């Protein structure tokens, strides 16, 4: 069983049952279907960050770089008025993102600790301004996606991405695949060594492991998953712009994952839902929603030592 904790199994069972049924209740409310789709996509992004920060020990404040890259690569690589195959291009884009992450990783992993936070921030700011100041990539307005890709596999076509409900299920599938992939990686021999590099880098190195290589591979994995989330987000809204890459985007994802419970992976889903839910609630309650949002974040840091997942575990584990 890759889901070791009871809390984790209960939460995920409840989550997936509800998530699968949501479109049945919201069939005629496309706004909510769209909103929940965005939450699912963000959950993929936040899980990939949680993997890097909580499990590999790489605190990055530049994760949104790859989120934006996923969107930009799609627009740049695909013809403007022709529907391409989603699966082929998703793999293609993730491959290129992985290569970029490899190069970025070789640079940023030369530093550690607080300097790692800052150099990842600097690289994503650089990319942000690169797209912001460039005319060929649409500057501040970004680029538009005119044709949604088609999703046939071997001639079979289950999903129509123009249909919000279908898009929702594609995003939910993304959550499932990301969750399982990260969990499988963490359970593997590779994952165990990666966690060892976080817990005790000196000892792991003394055992003969090249910790730089393990960190680099993990960085590539996390970044590639983020690019997939960014691709989905760009497709959902039909555009990509530099706002995808802001440090606020990276920061918000970090807030979601810490709120959920750092390193728990399923906590990232919980944190994303809670954050987005609270924001939606406060936004509709008052114009000054940020005051309440900030207050809620501060309260949760003070009261919950290990995030929401930690609180759930205290309730459910014996």
């Amino acid at each position, binding site marked *: 069983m890759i889901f070791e904790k009871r809390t984790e199994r209960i939460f995920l069972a409840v989550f997936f049952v509800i998530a699968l049924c949501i479109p049945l209740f919201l069939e005629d409310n496309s706004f909510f279907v769209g909103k929940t789709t965005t939450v699912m996509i963000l959950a993929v992004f936040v899980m990939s960050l949680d993997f890097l*920060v909580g499990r590999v020990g790489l*605190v990055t404040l530049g994760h949104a770089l790859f989120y934006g890259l996923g969107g930009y690569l799609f627009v740049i690589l695909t013809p403007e008025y022709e529907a391409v195959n989603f699966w082929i291009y998703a793999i293609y884009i993730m491959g290129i993102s992985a290569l970029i992450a490899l190069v970025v990783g070789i*640079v940023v992993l*030369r*530093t*550690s600790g*607080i*300097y790692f*936070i*800052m*150099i990842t*921030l*600097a*690289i994503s*700011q*650089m990319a942000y*301004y*690169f797209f*912001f*100041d460039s005319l060929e990539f649409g500057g501040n307005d970004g680029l538009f996606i005119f044709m949604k890709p088609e999703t046939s596999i071997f001639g079979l076509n289950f999903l129509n991405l123009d249909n919000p409900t279908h898009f929702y299920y594609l995003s939910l599938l993304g959550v499932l695949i990301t969750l399982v992939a990260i969990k499988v990686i963490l359970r593997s021999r590779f994952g165990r060594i990666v966690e060892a590099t976080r817990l005790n880098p000196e000892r792991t190195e003394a055992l003969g492991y090249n910790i730089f290589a393990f960190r680099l591979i993990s960085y590539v994995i996390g970044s590639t998953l983020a690019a997939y989330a960014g691709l989905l987000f760009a497709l959902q809204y039909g555009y990509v712009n530099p706002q995808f890459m802001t*440090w*606020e985007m990276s*920061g918000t994802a*970090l*807030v979601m994952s*810490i*709120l959920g419970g*750092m390193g728990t992976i399923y906590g990232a889903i919980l944190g994303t839902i809670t954050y987005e839910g609270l924001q939606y609630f406060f936004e509709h309650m008052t114009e*000054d*929603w*940020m*005051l309440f*949002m*900030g*207050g*809620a*974040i*501060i309260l949760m*840091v*003070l009261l919950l*030592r290990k995030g929401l997942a930690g609180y759930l575990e205290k309730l459910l584990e014996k």
Partner: protein
Amino acid sequence: MSTELFFVQLINGLQYGLLLFLIASGLTLVFGVMGILNLAHGSMYMVGAYLVWYFVAVTGSFTVSAILSAVIALGLGILIERVLIQRLYNRNHLDQVLLTIGMIFVFNSLQSILWGNDPYGVAVPEALSGSVPFTDNSSYPVYRIFAAMVCIAIATALYFIVSKTRLGMLIRAGESNREMVEALGVNIKSLYTIVFAIGVMLAAISGIIAAPMSSIVPGMGESVLITCFVVVVIGGMGSIKGAFVGALLVGVISTFAAVLMPTMSNMIIYIFMILVLLVKPQGLFAK
């Protein structure tokens, strides 16, 4: 570029760099002594600017407003440290990041509730409103020279306090070994409160000084925060001397970049920072 333009830009860059140093000094001081990365540091800069704008509108005197704002900022710093930061000393660094992000939300919201989202400006105080002739056909505003002087004065005072006074000795001791300082009977808790409050006040003073030179707008704190990160990282986190050198470098480089290569000017300081970290992964003045 003519020699004249070169010198004007150089002075602009140095003046901007000095202001950056003033903002960054508080950030690096708090990080160096307390190990806290205060993401809400930029918000304190914003608070300073808005406070001085508000008091100038009420009292009409820039000097009175500046002093009032700085004192309020000091009180705010003590309050924040006592009520919030103090609870997180034994916690994970990420919890501190989360807390200070929450504070950014609160301060931005308070700014919009109290003062709205219109941009404001503070008039340059009359005594400093002239400009000095620079060459035959160019001149330099007196206020900018004054601002640079204030920054230099505060930098000198900071250097003196840290290296020559008892408080400075405790600060340096706290940086290198917190437990030992505590064991020697120093109340490290109040030391931390003082350091954090000084950090907040330095950010606010920068906002006060910058107010007559720039427009006071929502979000001004965040943009300055990121530039400050670049400054302290180039200099070496926690090093005040490093922040000084880093700030002047960033000030001059970004000013010249804006003139020489406008399309790339925003990226230049980040490229510079990455290059510095590749050569010196802990910044120029790493401890």
